[in-house]
């Protein structure tokens, strides 16, 4: 085995065989699952208290109480407010709801009163308001002598279906853009996550060798650049291993979790997305979406995704390696140096969100060529089907820049790893790059 291979395999094996790696790899998906279930439970949590409410109805309307009275129990009362107030402390009543007289269809604002020593929470208050709004609507329909069925016919759902002009372009459904946005965002996010996590791991590993002083022994038998690349590749492979394991584990844990919790998929989705009060998707729409996803050019997306992933990872990981080499014996020093790397990555992720919203904007065009942003932004734009020449140009810029960055990082690295003690300043680092 050559030296690069030896260094890669050492880096890979020591990391993968570490119990911390095994533990985080196995527990992270489980942790996520538990996290989402807990979030779902928190949001779906309904107060278990049942309110008993005395209603004094002076509105002369039929009230439209909801059919399931799990949260409220309404008691229509014929007593006066004063006598109910007098009984309040002793009785089971939580509140007295007074509905004043309703004067007719011209009323646009209607105020009713809720007497209680404990004010209602927002959710219950709005529930009562909904009940009243509905009742008034029915009353108005009755007073205006309108037909409920005709009213329903007034609502129309409108959607725009994009159609191509030239025959060579692909026909898309109304969902294309939404799907592209979601898939693109997910891919950009995955690349961001990997670069950040494993790049930082490369930095720690380099700084560790420097602090341990083992680096001097290694580079007396291998070239510094071999050691640096070995590290970058080794950690990258660790990352890929972890992601592959997650890809296999996630569905398994998901299914097992469902079995254990006794919830079916529908319930879990409802539990985890209570905020998204979306209308239930009908079967036809679902079929269109699935067809749309299946119809994407997955080979192109896959290959290009991988190329951007590699370019982006090498670019940022080599920068992280250089920073690791420039740190002193106290690894916390690295903070001020890492800013140079973390700021472009963070900017890239924000630009990505903006770019998938406005894929034809100048910002998106710039970011898809600018090498610090393109590894995250361009994959996100892939499902909008950019032309090949744009992808190739962007990749060429990325890889050219990546090569230059590895060269620069290599120069910082080979000097930095032998400078023991204090963290290097930017001035020193620039000297190292220029030194022959």
């Amino acid at each position, binding site marked *: *085995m050559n*030296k690069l291979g*030896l*260094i890669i395999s*050492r880096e890979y094996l*020591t990391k993968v065989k*570490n119990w911390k790696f095994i533990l985080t790899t196995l527990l992270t998906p489980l942790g996520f699952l538990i996290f989402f279930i807990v979030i779902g439970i928190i949001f779906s949590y309904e107060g278990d208290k049942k309110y008993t409410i005395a209603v004094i109805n002076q509105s002369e309307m039929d009230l439209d109480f909801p059919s399931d009275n799990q949260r409220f129990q309404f008691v229509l009362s014929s007593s006066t407010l004063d006598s109910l107030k007098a009984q309040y402390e002793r009785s089971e009543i939580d509140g007295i709801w007074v509905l004043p007289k309703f004067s007719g269809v011209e009323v646009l604002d209607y105020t009713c009163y809720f007497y209680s020593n404990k004010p209602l929470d927002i959710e219950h208050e709005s529930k009562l308001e909904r009940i009243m709004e509905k009742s008034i609507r029915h009353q108005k329909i009755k007073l205006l002598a309108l037909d409920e069925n005709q009213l329903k016919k007034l609502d129309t759902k409108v959607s725009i279906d994009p159609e191509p002009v030239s025959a060579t372009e692909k026909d898309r459904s109304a969902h294309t853009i939404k799907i592209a946005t979601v898939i693109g965002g997910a891919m950009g996010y995955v690349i961001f996550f990997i670069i950040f996590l494993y790049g930082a791991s490369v930095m720690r590993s380099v700084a560790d*060798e420097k602090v*341990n*002083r*083992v*680096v*001097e*022994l*290694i*580079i*007396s*038998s*291998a070239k510094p650049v071999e050691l640096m690349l070995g590290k970058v590749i080794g950690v990258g492979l660790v990352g890929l291993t972890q992601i592959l394991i997650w890809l296999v584990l996630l569905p398994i844990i998901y299914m097992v979790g469902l079995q254990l919790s006794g919830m079916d998929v529908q319930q879990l989705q409802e539990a985890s997305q209570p905020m998204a009060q979306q209308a239930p998707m009908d079967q036809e729409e679902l079929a269109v979406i699935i067809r749309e996803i299946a119809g994407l050019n997955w080979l192109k997306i896959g290959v290009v995704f991988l190329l951007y992933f590699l370019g982006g990872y090498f670019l940022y990981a080599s920068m992280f390696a250089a920073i690791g080499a420039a740190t002193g014996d106290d690894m916390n020093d690295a903070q001020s140096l890492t800013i140079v790397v973390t700021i472009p990555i963070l900017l890239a992720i924000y630009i990505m969100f903006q770019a998938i919203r406005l894929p034809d904007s100048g910002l998106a065009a710039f970011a898809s060529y600018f090498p610090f942003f393109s590894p995250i932004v361009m994959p996100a734009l892939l499902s909008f089907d950019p032309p090949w020449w744009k992808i190739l140009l962007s990749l060429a810029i990325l890889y050219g820049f990546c090569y230059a960055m590895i060269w620069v990082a290599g120069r910082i690295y080979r000097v930095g790893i*032998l400078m*023991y003690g204090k963290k290097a300043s930017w001035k020193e680092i620039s*000297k190292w790059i220029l*030194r*022959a």
Partner: protein
Amino acid sequence: MDMESLLELNQVVKDYGGVKAVDHVSFSVPKSCIVGLLGPNGAGKTSLIRIITGITQADSGKILLHGNNIYKIQDPSIGYMPEERGLYKKMKVGEQLVFLTRLRGLSKEDAERSVVGWMKKFEIESWWNKKIEELSKGMSQKVQFIATVSHRPRLIILDEPFSGLDPINTNLIKEEIIRLKNEGASILFSTHRMEQVEEMCEHIILINKGKVVLNGEVQAVRNEFKENLFEVKVENEFSPAPHPGFEFIPVNVQTFHIRISPQHNSNELLQYMIQQGAVIVSFNELLPSFNEIFIKTVNEKSHE
């Protein structure tokens, strides 16, 4: 070139931003020889060692190993122990030694065989699966030494090998250095400790401010620096008459240091003393210690 030399440096220069850390250094290391590399702090010892080990490259000059450009040799047979010792803390002893040995160009099988051999020799086979962080300092020093020599290098370079070593390990490593030399390897080590130079080295190179200021065999260097000074102890009370060839410096009543002028020799001194009535108990030449040679040379050169 001299066929007997293993390593040869010729006009090697290394400049760090205007400061010449290594300034036209030339010397050679003979085969099967222990060479001491001496010099005050900041003289350029570590810079020089890093150039020989290929960690940094010289700006100009030639470095030949077995007569070939050292940078062009794939896996030059060099063992190196840096002054700043270090191993992977989280790695197991056996794994780590095999990795480092393979990195020096040995096959997996050869590396394993050699590491097992050395660990048996130092009676530390039972540490194979221990992590470095679990070992004491003395224990990891043994591992570090094995990492230096496990690939059977012809040239072993040790930067301050005895600093921080306990007496037992110092002795162990001293013995190993001598044994390796007897098996044909050459050892170049830097040190501050002059008694080790006197005890072990056959050849010394003294550098100061990046330049070689003294280079030669230990005995030859000593002879070069000797001042014809002798110490004589007598039994009786003795007060010699002055003699133009012998300068008597009394140390105490019965001990004298005598400097002999070049026209005379030690036999003549003894004859003169006996004739003057001295009853001689002991007689020996006072050779300068390496400490003195070191300080003298460094001071002389820096006042030039």
